[in-house]
């Protein structure tokens, strides 16, 4: 068990499984998960609650032990190290600021436990507090701070010991919308400034898409897809990812012919779409195509036609629920005109244009 030395990998999770309970009650929180997280990366674990993302984070932090598998931090195996011997710090979901200590004592706690020199602790604590713009609150107690301020202190506390990796467990979930949006930018900047690898857990896709260098989408204890924000959004690999990130239409189509790995698929009204073949679907089989609602254009010349069943006003856009001639329903998102009026109304028959490049064949 001597891994290949690759210093670009900050955290390497290899074939980790974590089971809770036993017998009939057995829950597989993580089921054979492997990922490599690069040095200096903003990496996000994204998924619905119960998908195993927080469990994975807690395993990396050392609060839980895995059932099987190994975790490496810069090529050192850390599975047998307790949390206090791992150069990894966590920003807790509800911050977990020590209520009996001042802000400064909270921030200095890690360095104190590392037996650093008191003057260094003081200097470093104040430095970190300045970094998160909280230096004027050094002598306050956590209860005297607002949620957003507590959030900054939690961040400072985790950054002060200069860990190799910073774990963030849905740190923005307790903040209100405006503050949350502002903090996104700040977190991203902080990550660039400090050069520390961030592993960020969230169930909020917008958060994940705006901040991350790479995202791992998780579901049911497994990694569904790993990739950059654009990869994940534009090229979802399976139905779960396409459905979880943004909105998608799922259309059944029949593969007519395959040429150079390009499949020609037939939809309703014999409308044909050409897209890359994903997986091992043979000619003549039925596949699922995912199409984002905003990529479909309403165009009367198109041969693919349907009736508008419902219109839903969304402010900037209008969603049209359209029933195609083969009875499948499809949602189209269309930008409203300058006066805010919807361009079509309920009951109208329309043509739909689906660009080939907007369609993605799903592996499952």
């Amino acid at each position, binding site marked *: 068990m001597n891994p290949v030395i690759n210093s670009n990998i900050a955290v390497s999770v290899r074939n980790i499984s974590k089971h809770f309970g036993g017998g009939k009650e057995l829950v597989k929180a993580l089921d054979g998960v492997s990922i490599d997280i690069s040095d200096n990366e903003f990496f996000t674990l994204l998924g619905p609650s119960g998908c195993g993302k927080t469990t994975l984070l807690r395993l990396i932090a050392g609060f839980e032990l895995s059932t099987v598998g190994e975790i490496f931090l810069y090529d050192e195996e850390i599975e*047998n*190290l*307790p949390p206090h011997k791992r150069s990894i710090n966590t920003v807790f979901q509800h911050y977990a600021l020590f209520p009996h200590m001042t802000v400064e004592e909270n921030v200095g706690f890690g360095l104190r436990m590392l037996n650093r020199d008191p003057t260094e602790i003081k200097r470093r604590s104040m430095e970190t507090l300045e970094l998160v713009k909280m230096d004027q609150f050094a002598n306050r107690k956590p209860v005297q701070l607002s949620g957003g301020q507590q959030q900054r202190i939690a961040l400072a506390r985790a950054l002060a010991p200069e860990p190799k990796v910073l774990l963030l467990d849905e740190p923005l979930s307790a903040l209100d919308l405006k503050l949350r949006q502002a903090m996104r930018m700040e977190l991203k900047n902080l990550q660039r400034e400090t050069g520390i690898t961030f592993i960020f857990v969230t169930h909020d896709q917008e958060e994940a898409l705006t901040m991350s260098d790479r995202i791992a989408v998780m579901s049911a204890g497994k990694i569904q897809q790993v990739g950059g924000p654009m990869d994940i959004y534009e090229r979802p690999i399976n139905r779960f990812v396409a459905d979880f990130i943004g909105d998608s239409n799922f259309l059944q189509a029949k593969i007519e012919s395959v040429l150079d790995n390009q499949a020609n698929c037939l939809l309703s009204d014999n409308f044909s779409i050409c897209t890359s073949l994903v997986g091992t679907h043979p000619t003549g089989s039925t596949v699922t195509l995912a199409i984002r609602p905003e990529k479909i254009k309403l165009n009367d010349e198109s041969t693919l036609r349907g009736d508008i069943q419902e219109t839903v006003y969304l402010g900037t856009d209008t969603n049209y629920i359209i029933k195609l001639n083969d009875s499948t329903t499809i949602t189209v998102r269309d930008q409203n005109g300058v006066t805010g009026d919807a361009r079509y109304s309920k009951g109208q028959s329309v043509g739909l244009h689906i660009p080939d490049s907007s369609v993605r064949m799903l592996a499952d």
Partner: protein
Amino acid sequence: MELPRRNPVTRRWLALSPAIVVVSIFMILPMIILLVFSFMEADPYGGVDPGFTTEAYVQILYERDFDDLLIFDPVYLNIIGRSVLLALLATIGCLVLGLPVAYFIARQSSRTQSLLLYLITIPFWTNLLVRTYAWILLLSSDGVIEQPLKFLGVIDESLDMMYTNGAVAVGLIYSYLPLMVLPIYASLEKLDFRLIEAAHDLYADRFRVARYVIFPLAAPGIVAGCILVLVPSLGAFIAPDLLGGGKKLMLGSLIQVQFASARNWPFGSAVAICLLALVMMMLMYQARIASKRRRETGD
């Protein structure tokens, strides 16, 4: 390579051991000894003599005449009966007094709630002997209650309130009232007030709201409160002793007397075992109700 993390199981049992050892040796073991004593022969000078006999239990129901024949003697049965009756009376008294108050408190603002709860817990934590003694001042002839009544000419002679079953009941209610209010309050405090609004909305008047919504939801608290009052009332010593004047013996006094002046340890042990059995039965009943309720409500 770092050693695997230390096994927390050893540490846990190490931390638990002082409590387990102390309670086992000084609580469980004495109970077992008490059980053994109840099957031994009495030593006329106190304590026990070796030898197995069920005499102590027989003695609860029968008396031996000069020919060693067993004659049914209800004197101890009377004491047990009186204890059970007075304990039930005290429980009902506490319930009647305490239930409306628990509801009243649960409806106040959280500041007022905490103040009223504080006022209820004060008597509970003050010395029971002292509190019961205060009732002597109130109830005795020419006491604080009778004096003004005599002065106003309402009564001419003493009401003789002391040394009666009534006095004991008042003392018992007074002793354990907080134990009734607190659990009922705890279950009412969790009650979602919207349920009461919903019941009114569905045409229930306030008494039917009480009957069909408040009482059923307060039931776990009421059962817990009743057990909490019933158990110590059964074995009470101070109230019957001070306010019943030794004439109205209850189980607690009967047991105490056997170990002090009457000096029949096996008999005292047997009565104590009977009391314990009674109490355990009630606690098991309550545990069953509580677990049934938990299953039903699914918490």
